[in-house]
């Protein structure tokens, strides 16, 4: 429902309500008038959907139409055939839910839905059954279906990629960072607790001061808004890696951009379909429309941008004319008789520190000269204010500078050890270019709020600021955080092992089992073999007959069988006493024991129950066990 246009949801609820009312009244015969009404409603809803989406043949309008049709079908149909058709529609609707959401709760919901569908089919076939017994029958079916589900899921040949071109709207994902930055654009992200990416480090974790996950690099500035500049990309990194190395597996949530949000600075990787942009971002060849896992490495101490072309650097010095006059004046003052760029950077940082700027989630709105107003008037800002101001200061002093957005930090999930980077870790920092040293990261936010870098956003905010719920202190928030971490560890395992199960992982699994997973024939043979085994087991279950009668009958039966082997089978017409007498006549040595057994059985079977019945039963069992005909 949440993924449908609101008015379609409302229509569906209204229709289902109407149907429920009709069922409750026991008036479910559909007349001609109703059919006509349903037809008109269907046409109206189809028209509405066309108007809403502007097109008809696509995923989203299709799903909306499907939902409406299902509700109408339930209203219109009353025969079992109609209901079966409705069940098939329901299955399609269930699949369409997975377009938007494949998380654990949705899987549980789908399981429940499938159970209800099966129960409906059972009830259609056996109208005499009570709802509970129909549910039980379908539960048994589901239980027997589970092994098939597991085997088929693992062994059914997975095909890479779509069978045909997907319509443009096929995928939708959460967009995190955008291609531009205006004051306030990052603080919006901070409110979101959603995960942007996860990283599983193979060895050592990088220190908090090195946890910069690179997003869009903004080098165009119009006085207020920073935006990206087109860059070139190549297969190998535009730098020579140096320093310590960190290996990790990154899982990026879909965001519909090519950005891979790598830890600065990515080394050469064996992964295919990845390129390095000249502004040091790591890019995928196609937009990330589904959860993507990659094996990556990072060398945070690598010097970068040593050989950047002059025009790039000239661009990184551009400021719109006449903008930020007070900052320009300040920088003219600061750069006076400074020997080199590094001195200017240090002086600028010193100035920022002395300015007593405050780091806050709710900065005041700024006017036409946001940088000047922030630096000299309000002094209250978030990371985008700090980075924007610092980059402008550098440019005013003629030093190439740019703003880099991305994520900074990340928390370790205690339950599965992965580092989780959320939208709330979004950050902006600055890079300045200095001769012979290349691009250097400067994080001006650290001056006002050093804890932001070392200990995360929550610790950096002044106490008066209202934090998003999950960042608050206190027992409840701590418990909630714990539960969230546990849940996310589970969801991550689910995402990796179930949702992310693809051709590659299928091959890995098979080679783990010692089979050649790459060969289709092996795969199919394994699949067919396993399914046959499962079917055989199911058939054995069907053919298995539970022994009839109670324990007493079975004992007596055993005794009769034993005598039959001895050549004295009981005739169908013979009762226990007659049988015993015949045996006594034909085989005198057994007479006494057989008579005792037969009398005991007859008394237990046909006599009234007495206090000593269980004891006698045990005694009879013992006698029959000990008995062997002579």
């Amino acid at each position, binding site marked *: 429902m949440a993924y449908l246009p609101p008015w379609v949801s409302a229509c569906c609820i209204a229709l289902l309500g109407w149907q429920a009312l009709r069922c409750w009244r026991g008036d479910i015969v559909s007349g001609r008038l109703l059919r006509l009404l349903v037809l008109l409603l269907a046409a109206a809803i189809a028209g509405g959907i066309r108007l809403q989406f502007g097109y008809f043949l696509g995923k989203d309008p299709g799903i909306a139409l499907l939902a409406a049709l299902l509700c109408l079908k339930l209203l219109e149909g009353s025969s079992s055939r109609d209901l079966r058709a409705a069940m098939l529609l329901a299955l399609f609707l269930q699949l369409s839910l997975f377009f938007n959401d494949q998380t654990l709760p949705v899987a549980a919901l*789908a*399981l429940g839905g499938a159970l209800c569908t099966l129960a409906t089919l059972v009830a259609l*076939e056996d109208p005499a059954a009570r709802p509970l017994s129909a549910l039980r029958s379908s539960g048994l079916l589901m239980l027997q279906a589970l*092994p*098939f589900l597991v085997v088929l899921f693992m062994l059914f040949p997975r095909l890479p990629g779509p069978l*045909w071109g997907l319509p443009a709207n*096929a995928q939708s994902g959460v967009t995190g960072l955008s291609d531009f930055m205006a004051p306030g654009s990052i603080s919006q992200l901070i409110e979101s607790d959603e995960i942007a990416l996860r990283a599983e480090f193979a060895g050592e974790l990088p220190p908090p001061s090195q946890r910069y996950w690179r997003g869009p690099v903004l080098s165009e500035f119009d006085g207020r808004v920073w935006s990206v500049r087109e860059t070139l990309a190549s297969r190998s990194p535009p730098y020579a890696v140096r320093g310590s190395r960190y290996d990790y597996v990154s899982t990026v949530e879909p965001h519909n951009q090519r950005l891979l949000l790598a830890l600065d600075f990515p080394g050469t990787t064996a992964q295919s379909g990845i390129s390095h942009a000249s502004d040091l971002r790591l890019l995928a060849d196609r937009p990330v429309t589904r959860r993507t896992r990659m094996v990556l490495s990072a060398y945070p101490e690598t010097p970068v941008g040593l050989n950047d072309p002059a025009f790039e650097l000239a661009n990184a010095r551009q400021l719109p004319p006449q903008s930020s006059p007070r900052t320009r004046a300040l920088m003219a003052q600061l750069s006076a008789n400074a020997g080199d760029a590094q001195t200017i950077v240090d002086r600028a940082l010193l100035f920022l520190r002395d300015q007593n700027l405050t780091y806050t989630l709710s900065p005041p709105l700024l006017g036409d000269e946001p940088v000047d107003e922030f630096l000299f008037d309000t002094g209250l800002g978030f990371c985008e204010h700090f980075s924007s101001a610092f980059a402008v200061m550098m440019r005013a002093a003629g030093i190439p500078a740019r703003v880099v957005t991305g994520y900074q930090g990340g928390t370790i999930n205690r339950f599965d050890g992965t580092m989780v980077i959320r939208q709330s870790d979004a950050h902006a920092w600055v890079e300045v270019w200095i001769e012979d040293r290349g691009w250097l990261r400067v994080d001006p936010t650290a001056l006002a709020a050093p804890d932001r870098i070392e200990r995360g956003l929550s610790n950096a905010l002044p106490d008066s600021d209202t934090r998003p719920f999950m960042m608050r202190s206190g027992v409840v928030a701590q418990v909630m955080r714990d539960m969230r971490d546990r849940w996310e560890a589970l969801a991550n395992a689910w995402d990796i092992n179930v949702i992310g199960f693809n051709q590659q992982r299928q091959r890995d699994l098979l080679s783990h089992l010692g089979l050649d997973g790459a060969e289709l024939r092996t795969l199919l043979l394994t699949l067919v073999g396993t399914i046959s085994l499962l079917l055989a087991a199911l058939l054995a279950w069907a053919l298995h007959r539970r022994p009839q009668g109670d324990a007493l009958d079975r004992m007596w039966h055993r005794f009769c069988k034993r005598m039959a082997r001895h050549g004295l089978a009981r005739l169908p017409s013979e009762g226990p006493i007659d049988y015993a007498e015949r045996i006594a006549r034909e085989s005198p040595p057994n007479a006494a024991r057989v008579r005792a057994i037969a009398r005991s059985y007859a008394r237990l079977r046909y006599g009234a129950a007495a206090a000593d019945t269980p004891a006698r039963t045990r005694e009879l069992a013992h006698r029959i066990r000990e008995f062997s005909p002579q």
Partner: protein
Amino acid sequence: MNLVERLEAIPDRAAAWLGRRGPTKLPMQLTQGRIYILPSGAGMAFGMALIVLLIGAINYGLSLGYGLVFLLVGAALSATVQSFRNLLGLNITRLRIDPVFAGEPATLQILLENPTSLRRPALRLRCGTAESLATLEAVSSADIDIPLPTTQRGWMPVPAIRIGTRWPLGLVRAWSLLRPDLNCLVYPAPEAGAPPLPQGNSRETAGRLTRFSGDDDFAGLRPHRLTDSPRHVAWKAAASGGPLLTKEFAAQQGTSLLLDWHSLHGLGDDARAARLTAWVLAAEGLGMRYALRTPEGLLDAASGPQHLRTCLARLALARSRHA
């Protein structure tokens, strides 16, 4: 004939081809070899839907889509086996069909026995075009009635009986065929508005239709004949050690009718049978003694339900001998 019916005819034809199509001996137990399974129409639609779902899952890379499809495939396979299990081990112990008049439905009675501890829901018993639903509880048996339409007098062979089920999901049907070696005797439908009973052709010359309510007028005793109604046996005489005698009453004595096939000139066989049936029923209703002559021979005058049944059976099968 739609696709499903065509498919269902296959095992039957195979059995015919293998020469295994003789009548079934009763009691019959439904064993593995006797149960056939094929998808039903709904099952085929379900299969198609699963294929489309699977293509969707592959195309959009929906892992849970694969999961859903595979779960449903598993459920369908399990349902197939459960359908089979729902029939397995049932016993058909007895079949019975009583004679009826043409046009009335004949009731085929099937004694179905479930010796196992499983409940057997939604059994469909089908014979010709008629179908009945039944559910057998664990360790129980039930007489299941199937009404068979009748049209023509004579022997009507009972068509093959199909014991089937589509339980649990209705996606597959499992069934077993029973070829009963059984015929239903269909009496002729009595002619509506038949002329009154003939009077002039009484066989016995002394025959006079005096009174019908003459049961009271005791006329004497005669030696007992097997076809005599037990109501008319002189029990007092028998109890006192005498021979078994039948009391004769005045009304009966002279009213022994002869109903003759050959007297109905200008009528077809079926019309004659219909009229004679109406007369036989009327005579029996009046408590008269009547004799019946058909091309097969003469039935002596008598009355009572046994005589009525004999006459009706004669009439069901009577044919004129054309030279």
